[in-house]
């Protein structure tokens, strides 16, 4: 697993340790009797269904983990376990090192009031409150005075570009605008952890793209720790630092977008990655070759984090191989025209490295 090293150095904000969510009347009793060793088959024979099956992972500070899966894959259930909207059947979840599942209801409320924000698929705005009141709601629940909370909410309205619509009711807004309110509300208490449950799935494709850009803009400013759930693989590729792909409650693979596209670990994951245009996902870093002749290079230089598509034209127009630089400006590799052409038009999917 080759994580983005800068994020990996940060402390883990969310940590899941063999999390199970099992639905069924007998589930709890069977877990108590099994002493932690869960025999999946025995549970399934007893009529239980696995919402989440042995999920273990960490999310680091400032990282965006996108949980991707089709409907019924357990992605939303996993999110609700971590936000403790549903009770976890077995396993441990730590938020900033604290045991989430051991928290009393008062501690949980404090945690949610100060550290967590969540955005919902169907927006979940309060129909009787205006835009401004909806955004101020989490602040008012916390006990902040009406005046202060409204002032803060007005600032949030500006942040999500809804100025002028403060006194509209949710029903008077379009889907995209409603979700902007949802986003503003979830950010009003300045949470550290941001949960997004298919936030853009209910929107039209054009609006969805616009909202994704908006979301990236906000994340560029705020650097939250994010757990983002989606069923849209393209959306996952576009937004994620790392992607976790789920199927039937099991996390099939958890890795960076590039690694998932290049090395799908199961056939199921490969089904998603087969159709993905490489140049839109991969960074220069993943296809660069060793520097053989440092003097015979083009004047053009590209960053190792640049997406191939954005530099392809430049490399193809250059007469010589193009240098790839890291953050500090050191040359770490070169890009050849041949490689780029192969990525853009080639048939052999599995390993671009072989093309050289």
């Amino acid at each position, binding site marked *: 697993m080759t994580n983005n090293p800068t994020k990996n150095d940060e402390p883990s904000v969310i940590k899941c340790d063999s999390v199970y969510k099992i639905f069924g009347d007998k589930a709890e009793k069977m877990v108590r009797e099994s002493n932690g060793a869960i025999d999946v088959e025995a549970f399934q024979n007893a009529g239980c269904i696995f919402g989440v099956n042995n999920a273990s992972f960490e999310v680091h500070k400032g990282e965006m983990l996108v949980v991707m899966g089709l409907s019924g894959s357990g992605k939303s259930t996993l999110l*609700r376990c971590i*936000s403790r*909207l549903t009770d976890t059947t077995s396993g441990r979840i730590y938020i900033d090192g604290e045991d989430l599942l051991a928290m009393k*209801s008062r501690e949980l*409320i*404090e945690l*949610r*009031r*100060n550290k*967590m*924000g*969540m955005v*919902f*698929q*169907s*927006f*979940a*705005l*309060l*129909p*009787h*409150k*205006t835009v*401004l009141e909806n955004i101020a*709601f*989490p602040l008012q*629940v*916390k006990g902040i005075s*009406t005046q202060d909370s*409204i002032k803060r909410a007005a600032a949030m309205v500006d942040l999500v570009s809804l100025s002028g619509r*403060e*006194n509209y009711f949710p029903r008077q807004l379009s889907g995209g605008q409603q979700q902007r309110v949802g986003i503003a*509300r*979830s950010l009003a*208490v300045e949470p550290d952890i941001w*949960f997004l449950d298919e936030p853009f799935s209910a929107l039209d494709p054009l609006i969805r793209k616009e909202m994704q850009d908006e979301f990236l803009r906000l994340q560029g400013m705020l650097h939250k720790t994010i757990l983002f759930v989606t069923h849209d693989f393209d959306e996952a590729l576009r937004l994620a630092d790392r992607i976790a792909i789920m199927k039937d409650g099991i996390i099939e693979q958890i890795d960076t977008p590039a690694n998932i596209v290049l090395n799908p670990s199961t056939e199921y994951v490969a089904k998603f990655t087969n159709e993905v245009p490489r140049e839109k996902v991969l960074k220069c870093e993943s296809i660069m070759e060793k520097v053989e002749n440092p003097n015979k290079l083009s004047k053009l230089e590209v960053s190792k984090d640049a997406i191939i598509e954005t530099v392809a034209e430049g490399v193809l127009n250059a007469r010589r191989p193009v240098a790839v630089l890291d953050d500090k400006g050191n040359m770490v590799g070169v890009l050849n025209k041949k490689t780029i052409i192969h990525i853009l038009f080639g048939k052999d999917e599995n390993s671009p490295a072989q093309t050289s």
Partner: protein
Amino acid sequence: MIQSIRHSKPLQFAILIAGFFVLCFFVTPSENNFLWRLPALIAGLPAIINNSVEFLMFDWFPIETYNVEIEDYEETALLQKITRSISGLILFCIEFIREILLGGVKTIVAFTSWDYVRDNSWAYWPALPWTVVAGIAIALGYALSGRWLAVFVGLATIYIAVFGQWEPAMETLSFVLIAAPLSVLLGLAMGVWAYKSQSVEAALMPLLNVAQTMPHFSYLVPVTVLFGVGDHAGAIATVIFATPPMIRLTLLGLKAVSPEVIEAGLMNGCNKVQLMFRVLIPTARHSILVGVNQVIMQCLAMAVIASFIGAKGLGFNLLLALNQLRIGQALELGICIVLIAVVLDKLSLGWANKQIDYFANLGFVERHKYGFIFIGILLVGIALAYLGTFIFEGGINYFYLIPHNKGFTTENFWQSGVDWMVDNWYQGLQTFNKLLIIDVLLPMKNAYLSMPVSATFLLAMGVGYIIGGIRSALIVGGFLLFIALTEWWDRALITAYMATFAVIVSVVIGSIVGILCAQNTLATKTVLLVCDTLQTFPSFIYLIPVIMLFGVTDTSVLIAVITYATIPATRYTVEGLRNVPVSLQDAGSMSGVNRIQRLVKIELPLAVPHIMLGINQTVVFALFMIIIGAMIGTDDLGQYILKALSDKNGIGNGLMLGLCVAFIGLAVDHLIQTWAKERRAALGLA
């Protein structure tokens, strides 16, 4: 053969009907034949209920209390003490509001004594001049909902004052202002409780079903026994009747809140109380407001019925006018009740929809605008009233209080109208009346009465079995068994015959009007508005015009019942037809259907489940009205309930009779609901 019977419902029905007639012809009518009539095994139950209530009220758990009036300790039963305290509290509240509006001494007496009031002539609470009450109501209308409501409130209050109904109207208002909030709070609390606990919900549902199908009258008897007679008893009976729909609608609304909204509330850090009061209840508010609206309507509908047990006000006067056959006066009073109902309804809606403006930067005067307006109205009104003492001679100050029946009246106009109609139409109406009674109603009544009990059971349980299997058959059978074992089976058959006749006519009229109106958007809107308005009228109002036309006969009752019960039949037909999915309409159009084909092949089959629910409502409405019709004179269950009302030991009879009516309604309700549910599922509409 057996296979085809199992799969063909028409065949099953045919066999059932054949069996029914076989039993009808071969069971001999005789007292000892159990196939003809069941023995009245539970005829002793009313006496047992009477005795146990009496024991609870007068002998159970005596406690020592200090009686101020005889200045000594005395023994009272605990339950009686409790009910008396509740009565006292409610009565005090009603009197308090009444005296703010109309003046009086009872509130002062409550804190001092009668002697004190007698000795001090200044100890009298003056009434608010009617101009002040009207002004405040208008200002309230403007503040809550704008100009149009203000105009409407203005016209309504002026009507009430000018027609000399101010005093009874304020009496009714004071009683509604206590009963309605009490019902709303109680209903909300019970609804929330049922939402939180499934076992509470399971226990509450059958109670609500019975409570909503019991006729109004049967509540009155136990209430008089427990709480005595007077305004408070009327208020309590009203609360009992108005709370069930509030509970139901609260529960419905809370259950319909989307789980994501609840999750959003939780993730925003709500604790349990905040989640309930700031997320769940406000989100469910549409449904809850419908409940409030229902409560207000029920309160005013009960205004007349509560006057049977001593509630003063418009209802009492209306009852009196009806008894004296003073149609014009009854009409004026009826309009007053409707106006109060509509005003209260609109005000409560406006209040619930009020929005706060956070950005307005207001000065002191602006912020306290309504306070100043209130004081202004008060001062102007009092000044006017003072001025009035100089203007008006003869002791009546029309700017202060318009005494009862000292206003305008159109009674003579209506009376001469009635006289004219009697003079000109009497012959025709009587012929129609006789024809209907002799050729239709009497034969039908006799047919019902000559039905052996075994045949009735076979038919009802058989229909239950065909519709909903063995479970439905048992439920329906259980309801009937209860009635059959009382001594009122024949009375119940008469109620059933009236209900059947009324429902058939209502459904025919309702569906024809509904089908015609559903063809056109404007007609749809109009007919729904008319239905809304008619439903606002307290049920008693319907008796006024029919007595006017037909006098005191069975026909009058049936026509009132039919008018009342046609409302839901029409409404549900229109709604059912208009709610057919547009995509299906389009699919029909592209298949090239003409208008008639569209109606018969597409719209009607899809609308039938909804129309059936309308018929269900029609049955309930009809039963209610038939029982109220006992006022005019019928010989069914309703008449016995009315008798129980004036009987000191009527509590057992009243309750049992009420249950009989409720069970007829519930049996029909069960059959129709089961059928409609299955049908909707089959059509993929659910």
